[in-house]
Structures are given as structure tokens and as C-alpha cells.
């Protein structure tokens, strides 16, 4: 029922768009990519028009990554999805069969045109002298991070801390102890990254905010370098926000060629430059080298190597009764 309403509403919207004679793409993305895709869309529409003479309008939709995926499952007509974690696109493939299960193999770098990582944002001058993950479990340090069960982005935070604990103290049991100690230092569990930013920045709660690197840079740019600084931990996770064409929607709307070109353009020099300017790490080696000085040097590990992919990580840590739930059970 809900799916039907969403579909028909979107159909009406798109029909309205097509009445102008232009092709319309809908890019369903997650929260912090708003500025990135504003710039990228205008670059792409220019590129596409000069190449093919065809005018294309790209609409963007932003929200929590999981919520956006659910909208697509429920019938939001997204030509492409650009979400915060592969797991959310997997769910679209699994629950609604809108794209093949092996979608991640279709584009380079696991369908990840740009990456990021998890860093620590502290108050100016770093009053609690936070240098690395193990400083977060010290008594008297208040840590701000969203609930990994409601925030897809925050699952990267959790996994980064877990792997640090595992590598430093030896095994998964020790890692769990470490993460449990860390979350005992969390006074507020917001439901999303935006809420946590408000808690840390506006409410003044917490000494350290576990954040995506690109969002930490954005926060500093917007709020001023006189208030916060970034601490790079010794190791962290390579955050891989993935992109995919939603086959069934694109075929139905006849936009597959443009949708595929749109995503491939993310890998072009122009696309990579735009990503870098928005503080995402480019995957193109040449562009990455050009912007290398912008990003702190951190030893990065991949979720596939450390946790055997999202499916396993989710089942073990974030599903009901997983390690995160166990932390809070007495």
C-alpha cells in the first residue's frame, strides 16, 4: 500500500519532469553527500550535454542511509543509489530484487568511487590529550557517537574501535571488553550522525566525537578551526560508501545509459576532484596523490579483510542479540 502510494507519487513527479522533454535521474543518497552531489550533478549535466547534446536533470534525495534504502525498497524510483554502506544496497537487492546480488562487482574498487575513514574530533587544544582509540576508554573521558543500530554510518565507528581492540589486546573477547568500556563512556546515544554532531557541538557534551573524516572536515570548515581539531588514530577502518544503478527502475524509465554514465563519471578526474574537494578520499591514484596532504596518514584496514564483509559483521555485532546489544545487557 505504502509502496504503491510512493510509487505513484514519484511517477507523478517524474511525469511532470518529463513533460519538459528532459531526462530525469533520481540519485538517492545519504546525509553528508549533499554538497558533494550538488557540485557533481552540475558538472555531470554539463558533461552529458556537451557529449550527447541531451539535457538531463538530476534530482537528489538525502537522509539516513538505511532509511533511504528502505524508501527504495518500498518503491521510491531511484535510478541510482549512493549510500553509506554496501549493506544497505545489499538489502535493496535482497528484499526487492531491483538489482543483481553481485552489484558490487560492476564498478571498480568494489563500486566505491570515493572512500573515507573514521577519525576522532576533539575540542581545540585537545584538553583530555586524546591520541588514539585507547584514550577513549579512560575514566572521565566522555565519547559521543550515534547508536550503531539506528545509524549505518556509526557502524563503521564501532567496527574501527573493535578492530583496534582486537589488534591491540589480542582476540575478539578482549575486543568486546574494549568496546564495552568505550560505550560505557558514551553519555548520549543519538539516533543519527546529525544528532550526535548537535550534541557534541551545540550542547557542548563530550570530549571526543567519533566521526567520518569528511564530516569532521566539514564541521571544522563550518564551525571554525578555532573550536575543534582532528585527531588521527593509529589505525582505522576504510569506510566504503558504495554506489549502484538500480537496474529495474532505470530500465523501466529508460535511463540506464545515463545512470551508468553518471556513476562512471564519479570515477573520472572531474568526479574524483569534486570528491576530494568535499573531503572524501579519491580512489584514483593520481588525484589521491594530488590531495594527499589534505588527509592525515592513517593505517587503514578493510571490512572485507577484518570482518569478512558486511553480512558477517552485521550478524555478529548489530543484529538483535549481537555484541552491541550484549554490551547493554546486565
Amino acid at each position: 500500500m505504502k509502496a504503491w502510494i510512493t510509487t505513484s507519487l514519484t511517477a507523478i513527479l517524474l511525469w511532470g519532469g518529463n513533460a519538459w522533454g528532459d531526462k530525469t535521474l533520481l540519485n538517492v543518497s545519504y546525509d553528508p553527500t549533499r554538497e558533494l552531489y550538488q557540485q557533481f550533478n552540475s558538472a555531470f549535466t554539463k558533461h552529458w550535454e556537451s557529449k550527447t547534446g541531451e539535457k538531463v536533470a538530476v534530482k537528489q534525495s538525502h537522509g539516513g542511509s538505511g532509511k533511504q534504502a528502505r524508501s527504495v525498497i518500498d518503491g521510491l524510483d531511484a535510478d541510482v543509489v549512493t549510500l553509506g554502506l554496501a549493506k544497505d544496497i545489499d538489502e535493496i537487492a535482497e528484499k526487492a530484487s531491483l538489482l543483481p546480488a553481485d552489484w558490487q562487482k560492476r564498478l571498480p574498487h568494489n563500486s566505491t568511487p570515493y572512500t573515507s575513514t573514521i577519525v576522532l574530533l576533539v575540542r581545540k587544544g585537545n584538553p583530555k590529550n586524546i591520541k588514539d582509540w585507547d584514550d577513549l576508554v579512560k575514566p572521565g573521558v566522555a565519547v559521543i557517537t550515534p547508536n550503531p543500530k539506528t545509524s549505518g554510518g556509526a557502524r563503521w565507528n564501532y567496527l574501527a574501535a573493535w578492530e583496534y581492540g582486537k589488534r591491540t589486546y589480542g582476540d575478539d573477547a578482549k575486543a568486546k571488553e574494549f568496546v564495552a568500556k568505550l560505550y560505557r563512556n558514551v553519555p548520549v546515544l543519538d539516533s543519527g550522525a546529525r544528532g550526535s554532531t548537535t550534541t557534541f557541538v551545540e550542547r557542548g557534551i563530550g570530549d571526543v566525537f567519533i566521526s567520518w573524516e569528511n564530516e569532521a572536515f566539514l564541521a571544522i570548515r563550518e564551525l571554525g578551526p578555532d573550536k575543534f581539531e582532528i585527531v588521527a588514530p593509529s589505525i582505522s577502518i576504510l569506510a566504503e560508501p558504495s554506489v549502484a544503478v538500480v537496474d529495474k527502475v532505470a530500465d523501466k524509465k529508460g535511463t540506464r545509459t545515463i545512470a551508468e554514465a553518471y556513476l562512471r563519471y564519479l570515477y573520472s578526474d572531474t568526479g574524483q576532484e569534486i570528491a576530494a574537494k568535499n573531503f572524501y578520499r579519491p580512489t584514483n591514484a593520481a588525484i589521491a596523490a594530488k590531495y594527499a596532504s589534505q588527509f592525515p596518514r592513517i593505517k587503514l584496514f578493510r571490512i572485507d579483510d577484518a570482518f569478512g564483509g558486511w553480512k558477517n559483521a552485521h550478524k555478529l555485532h548489530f543484529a538483535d542479540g549481537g555484541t552491541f546489544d550484549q554490551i547493554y545487557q546486565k
Partner: protein
Amino acid sequence: MGTFRQHSVLPGFNLALGFTLLYLSLMVLIPISAAFVRTAELTLPEFWNVVMTPRVLASYRLTFGASFAAALVNAIFGLLVAWVLVRYHFPGKKLIDALVDLPFALPTAVAGIALTALYAGNGWIGQYLEPLGLKVAFTPAGVFVALTFIGLPFVVRTVQPVLEDLEPELEEAAATLGANRLQTFLRVIFPAIFPAVITGFALAFARAIGEYGSVIFIAGNMPMISEITPLLIITKLEQYDYAGATALAVVMLVISFVLLLIINLLQWWSRSRSSSSV
């Protein structure tokens, strides 16, 4: 049968009833039954496991407890506000009257952010409360504050018209018959407005149970302590656990329905009692 065939003074009963049923079905029954259908994907033991875990039980206690407390406070102070707005004349009365509706109109997220800003440790109010050891924001007390805020207009707006209709002559008559002020209030005024207060209470209570937007910012959302049930529903949805989410929704629905039914019975009882005593 005979009474059924009799034509009412008002025409169009069949049409009106048909429309009412259709409208209620489209707007209320179908969405709710969708929740029940989704839940049916679970077996009974699975359902029980989902809705009876300690963390979920803690969230019921907070949701229903805080909603009940907030509605109770609103019933008392809302009555007071309605009384002042109806019985006294003072400059700025229209303005205050309009202010009462503000929690209706304000997006709940805005209310939540504003309240959190006020009650956080660095907020206008929070900075004076925290040294006293009173933490409001990011504790269950914050949930109560948010629910009180959003529930106020319901009591005021239901009691106000009843108070306005209450004739002053009744009180004068009570006074001439020797009743003191307390007696007049308890025996004459209160029975007349009690059903309206209960309605207001029920509305504020129901609203509070379903509230999400404003609470989520101020609650702190700590498992076992300050998580409300709607947040757990969202949590389950974030994990694509549609059946689990609707299972919780069904439990909330059933509890809310039973509570509202009890409140309605109470109202019916008080109304029949006050009319028989007149």
C-alpha cells in the same frame, strides 16, 4: 427491524454511515491491519521473544510511565490555564490563548531541539539545575518534559469550551444555598468539567505515547534507561526487521487501545453519575 426502517429526522443516514465506515476503513483500519498482517510473519514464540526482551520491557515502562505522568500533570495545570483564560480578563489574554496552541503547530523536532538546548548542561535552565544534581536532558526526566510540552493544548482546548458554557448562575445559586468556595468547586463545577478533563487527559496521553520527534533529541537514548518504544521500532526498521518492528507496533497499539477504552469507560461512568445527580 421496525425501528431500523423508521426515517430519522435528518435525511441521509445510510449515506453518511456508509461514508463514515469507508473513511474510517481507508484512514484507520487498513493501515492498522497492515501492521497486524506483517506481524503474522512471526510465529507466536518468536513474537513473544521480540516483544518481551528486557530492553523492550524497559522501553514500555518509560513510554507509558512518562506519558501517563505527563498527561496527569497536563490535566492539572491545563485545567488551571483553561480556568484563567475563561474566568479572568487581563491584558494580553488573547496572546496567551494563542500561545497555548503553539505545541500543536510546532514541528516536534523543533520542540525537541529547543527543549534540549534549554535543559542541557550548558543551556539556560540546565546550567542552574545541574549544580543541584538535577539532570533533565538526556535522562528519562527529559522525556517527561518533552511529553508535557506537547500534551498541554489537548487539556486546555477540551476543558475551555465546557468552562465557557458553565453558567455563573450555578455558582451563585450554590453560594446562596450556603456552599463555601471549595464546596462550590468540588460539588458544582468539578463534576461538570470532569468528563472534559478526562477527554483532555486521554488525548494528551495518546499523543504522548506516539510521540517520537521531540523525545528523540532530549532522551539520550541509552538502552535500558532512556529508550522509548517508538525508537526501538525505528531501530528494528534500520535493521530491515519489518516483522519485529510491527510486532512492537502491535503491542503498543493493543496497550493504547485498552488504556483508551478504560479512560472512555471512566468518562462514561462519570458523565452518567453527574447527570443522575443533577
